[in-house]
């Protein structure tokens, strides 16, 4: 069990402030959704948590199962990330096997665990020999999820994990993430611009706008009874066929 606490995260690029004083806690078995439009800074938060970029100020503290802080060099054993575009996040040159065996070895585990890992994300073991271009979008994203699980991470950052996928496979991938989260007691940061999946998939919602968190709370409260004007705007912008046919008229 690992808990991640972000305190006062701030990132400035030259003069613009991409992320401004963002704090939250990721606890085992809970999903926090980070919602916002494009350019709101949500991906920058993800990259800071994954230690791909360094925050200008603020800190990211990890607490391990034993209640002691996790040292910085062990960060990647505990925190892993799933990227948005499964067509870009797998190296076209390498097989599925390579993508899973490397993180296993790097974190002191054996590459013989690859078939087991594939099984956990509901893929068959014979997929290991294939290259990314031979897989469908949904299969690729499952491989990317398996890669994130390989180091035995307990904190998963999912940066728009389904927005590049075909609609009919999106729910399947989200259900897989939800199942893994329940079974392994993962702490998940779910980044999305889709309020509906955020509501169904997460316990807590943070709404981000221009680098700041403008509203936060239990997902049902925030998304069905938004208080902040920006959240209200977001909620109203999502296409809502029900409204059209409930009134029974033309738009």
């Amino acid at each position, binding site marked *: 069990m690992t808990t991640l606490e972000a305190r006062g995260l701030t990132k400035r690029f030259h003069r613009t402030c991409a992320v401004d004083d963002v704090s939250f806690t990721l606890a085992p078995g809970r999903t926090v959704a980070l919602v916002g439009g494009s350019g709101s800074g949500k991906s920058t938060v993800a990259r800071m948590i994954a230690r791909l970029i360094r925050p200008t100020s603020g800190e990211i503290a990890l607490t391990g199962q034993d209640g002691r802080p996790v040292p910085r060099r062990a960060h990647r054993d505990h925190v892993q990330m799933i990227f948005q575009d499964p067509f870009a996040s797998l190296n*076209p040159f390498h097989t599925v096997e390579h993508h899973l065996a490397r993180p296993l070895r790097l974190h002191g585990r054996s590459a013989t665990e690859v078939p087991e890992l594939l099984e956990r994300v509901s893929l068959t073991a014979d997929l290991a020999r294939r290259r990314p271009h031979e897989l469908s979008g949904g299969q690729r994203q499952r491989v990317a999820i398996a890669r994130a699980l390989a180091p035995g991470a307990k904190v998963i950052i999912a940066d728009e994990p389904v927005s590049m996928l075909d609609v009919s496979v999106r729910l399947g991938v989200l259900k897989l993430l939800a199942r893994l989260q329940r079974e392994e007691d993962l702490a998940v940061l779910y980044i999305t611009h889709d309020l509906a999946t955020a509501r169904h998939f997460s316990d807590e919602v943070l709404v981000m706008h221009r680098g700041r968190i403008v509203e936060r709370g239990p997902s049902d409260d925030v998304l069905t009874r938004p208080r902040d004007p920006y959240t209200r705007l977001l909620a109203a912008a999502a296409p809502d066929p029900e409204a059209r046919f409930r009134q029974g008229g033309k738009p």
Partner: protein
Amino acid sequence: MTWTAKLVSGLCLAAAIVLFGLLGPLLTGDPATIRDVGLTPPGGEHLLGTTLTGQDVLAQLAHATRGSLWIGLLVGVLATVLSGLFGIVGAYAGGVADEVFSLFSNVVLVIPGLPLVIVVAGFVPAERRGTWTIALVLAFTGWAAAARVLRAQTLSLRNRDYVAAARVSGEKTWRVICVEILPNLLPVVASQFVFAVVLAILSEAGLSFLGLGAADSSTLGTMLYYAQNGFALQREAWWWFVPPGLVIALFGGALALVNFGIDEIVNPRLRDRGRRERDVVAVRAQVAPAEPDAVLTVRNLDVVYRTARPVHAVKNVSLTLRRGEVLGLAGESGCGKTTLAYAVNRLHRPPAEVTSGSVALEDVDVLALGPEELRRFRWVRLSMVFQGAMNSLNPVTPIRAQLQDVLRTHRPDLSASGRELRCAEVLRLVGVDPARLGAYPHELSGGMRQRVMIAMALLLDPQVMIMDEPTTALDVLVQREILNEIKRLRDELGFAVVFITHDLPLLLELADRIAVMRDGEVVEHATAEELYLRPRHPYTRELLASFPSLTGERGALLR
């Protein structure tokens, strides 16, 4: 790996020359032996004749080929290593290292190569001017251009998500470069290497011809140098200078073919088949009489990609678009919706082929139009907003010029002030301040650029507009604005829209009628209300169930 004709013939020719260089010297005699049979023409004992001093040309050629190849290989390897070091490592490291490295390669690049080679080669005394000296000099002047190419490629690769993913999984920097980035650069490195080898052989021949080559080696260049000094041309001893020249030309040609072959493997579009320009319509069907009120009628349209395994991308599709109507075309990636849109517009390119069916816009048989008629038809009566349209604006000209271009082409008699007025008018229509006409695309937000693209499609008052995923790359708020804009324009201008997207809820809200496509077929075609309340096809039901709703019971979906 795909073996193309160019690659195979290039490799065969190069292999033959390399074999000659490797084995030739073992089979022929000592090239330096002087005999009293000066300038014997080819034939008999000396297959390629003799030089002025009676040395066997064939034996000389074999040794010279070996010498030239050796120089080429040395320089090729050295230049590739240098360019990799400065191009790839610098670009990956970024920051100061990148600036210093790229400054250095730029400086080396602008140093004129051959003069420097001549100066350096001339500076080193002849007796100490060995093969290695020459190779080092040639490598130093030859790596910079390749480094720039590799740097540009690496800069784009290092931002790929798979590189970020490797870093997140804890890979060390050198492993990220060698295992994740380098393999994807291999085609570029290979073609740069081949280019460096050719350049080295040519430069070395030039140097040796000028008498500045390595003292201890015999190469094709030194052969030419001695032929020149022995007045081979004046004595009409062609067998002395033609063979070395021919070997250089053939080897250069072979490696050029290899390079073309590599390019074709990396970019399959370069292969000949795809370069036929015209769209193919392999059918002449009678245009069926249109329903009253129909603007666009598609009947039994089939589109096939004539590749090794033909792909039937659009199967027997029939659609009718009525005046002032929004027809939604819903489907997932690869279902053929974009292919259909392209065929309707006659924008499909080989290997795509319309094999049967008809497309009619009011009274125009679209599939029967000739090139000039097609030019007058497109955009005037039927315009299109492309997928990722906001990135299809030209980044280096202001939007005014791009809008006016359309008018200049299709309304040549319109005055300059008339053009300006019309451009301002369409921008106002899509809700962009006409003052932004002078703006460059990068000065506009994604939503604004998309509006400009819609304005461009509106310029000539088309009756039908096809929009291919016009809001997919935009965030929800901007998407909402664009949708409201489309509804308003439809009501104000009364044109008809074919709206292509994978987002069914969006269509349910916007469209009058919806066609659901799967694997090239329209599986269901109904009014939006009918489709929402009473979906008939299982696939439609599956799609509808894929979109969780903001209201309704929470969490039920994921159990």
